[in-house]
């Protein structure tokens, strides 16, 4: 998994022994999620998420393009991942990037969280193409969860320019008009309020890491047979970088508040009892609830903050009225 950082054998064994005793290096409980800190930027769609020391910045952008020929009624959603060059050390080249990308694609695109059809402007001709750029600023484990979280918050936060379709060919109303968009008027944010994306549900990914507590540690080999007997599987939430390096397999569950599982991936590695997997799913429910609440409150705060700056009184359409009438 990780190239640049190498753990010494002693360090590895120490960590595993700690885990076997139910303790972790940073003092967390086995099933404790690190604190999530979500910062929303001034611009719509700019999100900065911190999870412990891991930090990801997501920026959502949009443009108008021609939809794919085989899907004329749908918009486009793309994810672009930038691994900061000094963080490349922490990822084993393409595989991680690929994993994150596919993960986000599955949990947001395939689960219909982002309603692509709502991005369609004129069927077969114009649609919005939404692009999410991910930047990893600092990395201390749990790539997947944090990036997934950041993207979905970004999408919730992001707003699209209002577009009107002008059937009159001569129109030259909007400021962004050029030849290609001849009959579309894209309204700048300050003219007409932008519209939020239609997000149907909020998928949250939770990654579980698995370890076996056989004394020797390192060797993954000989323990397939007797999971149920001699050895117990330790199941860890929100692994840090060092813990991630040592894990023997992992399970990524994406769920939303409605107790709908959007995606599960267990990608080989140490085999895990099916019951354990079910337990993990049930445990994830609680965390998903918490995180969803957190996201919602953060967004609400942001909205309120933005409203503060708007001179609401002046925007009122109705005439001022004296309140205490005679």
């Amino acid at each position, binding site marked *: 998994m990780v190239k640049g950082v190498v753990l010494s054998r002693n360090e590895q064994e120490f960590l595993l022994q700690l885990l076997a005793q139910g303790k972790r290096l940073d003092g967390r409980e086995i099933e404790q999620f690190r604190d999530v800190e979500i910062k929303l930027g001034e611009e719509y769609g700019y999100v900065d998420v911190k999870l412990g020391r891991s930090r990801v910045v997501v920026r959502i952008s949009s443009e108008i393009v021609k939809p794919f020929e085989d899907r004329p009624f749908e918009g486009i959603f793309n994810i672009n991942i930038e691994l900061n060059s000094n963080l490349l050390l922490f990822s084993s080249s393409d595989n991680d990037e690929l994993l994150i990308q596919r993960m986000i694609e599955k949990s947001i695109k395939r689960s219909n969280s982002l309603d692509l059809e709502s991005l369609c402007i004129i069927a077969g001709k114009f649609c919005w193409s939404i692009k999410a750029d991910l930047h990893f600023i600092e990395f201390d484990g749990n790539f997947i969860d944090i990036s997934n979280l950041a993207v979905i918050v970004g999408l919730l936060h992001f707003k699209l320019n209002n577009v009107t379709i002008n059937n009159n060919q001569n129109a030259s109303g909007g400021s962004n008009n050029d030849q290609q968009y001849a009959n579309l008027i894209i309204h700048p944010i300050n003219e007409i309020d932008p519209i939020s994306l239609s997000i149907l549900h909020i998928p949250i990914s939770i990654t579980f890491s698995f370890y076996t507590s056989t004394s020797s540690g390192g060797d993954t080999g*000989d*323990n*397939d*047979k*007797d999971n149920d*007997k*001699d050895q117990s599987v330790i199941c860890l939430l929100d692994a840090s970088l060092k813990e991630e390096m040592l894990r023997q397999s992992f399970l990524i569950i994406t769920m939303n508040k409605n107790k709908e599982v959007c995606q599960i991936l267990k990608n080989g590695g140490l085999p895990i009892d099916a019951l354990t997997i079910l337990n993990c799913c049930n445990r994830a429910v609680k965390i998903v609830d918490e995180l969803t609440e957190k996201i919602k409150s953060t967004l609400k705060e942001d909205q309120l903050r933005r409203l503060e700056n708007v001179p609401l009184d002046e925007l009122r359409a109705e005439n001022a009225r004296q309140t205490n009438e005679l």
Partner: protein
Amino acid sequence: MSSTSKQNWAISDCDAHFCDVLVMLKIFVPFHCYGWSSQKCWGAEEETAGEAGKAGEAGEAPAEATMEVLTVSKPIQNREDFDSDSDSDLDLDFASPQKQSLQNSVVTPGELVTSDPMLMRGHGTYSVGNKTYSSVAGTISRVNKLLSVIPLKSRFRPETGDHIVGRITEVGNKRWKVDIGGEQNAILLLGSVNLPGGILRRKSQNDELTMRNFLKEGDLLNCEVQMLYNDGAAGLHTRSLKYGKLRNGLLVLVPSYLIVRTKNHSFDLPGNVSIILGVNGFVWLYKTPLKTSLSSSSTLKNTNLNKFQTMLNSDSSNYTPGSTSVSITRLEEESTWEIYSDKNDPNISNNVRLNIVRYKNCLKCLSHCEIGITKSRIEHVYDISLEYENSGNLIEIEVMERIGKDVLNGEKMRGVNTSKMMSL
């Protein structure tokens, strides 16, 4: 213009795929499953799975279009067939524990071999606690307390003393890497070969620099496994006059498990052809060399010597190996150069060449029929093959299978004791 004039559209009706859903096979495996926590148990019905349409196939002979230019046959579902019906008696045999001798029972990966902690666990097994499981599909073999499972098929695993044929793949630092058809390339140290200028002289730095003059990439050689390294790689040596570079013939590859490990692996066959049956399945067929009267010494008959000298002049004119060793005479030096020559004997007669290819086809025939290869069998097949004037006929599958049967039947008739024919 062409862009508008050429249009594709998919007309589903014209496609041929309408048949796929409807003809889906309707033989299914009935089973039932009772909830999560209760013990899973399957319906008692025996499954009918795996019926290839065999009733037709097995009975009728494959449609053959025999002609001398090209034979086309249908793939025959032979031996390892898909299905169960005809073999059900066989299954019963193996299912009854009384008949289940250790030698004949087949274990598959994950199957419990023994829970006796006293037995030592060899290849093809792994253990969890006291229990030993098989890690391959194969037969159990027990030698004293060593229990191992021998896979039915695997790549060549070298053992010390194996006489093998290999091909140089890499010239490295004081060593050659040799492809022997095994899991890893074998290693031939510069110190384990005879160099020109006396068998036991020290290897000079000059030798190191000119290793390619002795053996280079692609060269075939005939050698013996001297030792096995920890990681399973083989160390080779050619420190005998019977080993060395191969000439005057061609290589045949057969599966290594068909070669029976015997005392001797190089033979002279009828028809002035010799064979080296490498244990690794690399077989070298070549013209039987002229016998010299002093077979073991490095001196050669004068008549031969002249020939070699002329042969070697082109190769080694600008190189004097072991130039420091004064005591060795010129004669001995030159004679051992012969080991590393690339030149074939110029006088290989057509007859010998024809015999060599005939033997090659005989070997291919044995390997096709998966019959263990021994000297006597090769000769036997050769005899049978003589009824085909053109040995090119031997490449036909039908012919090969017929000959294979003949060989086995012939042995039965003659009662040849070939008890350990197979290495399996």
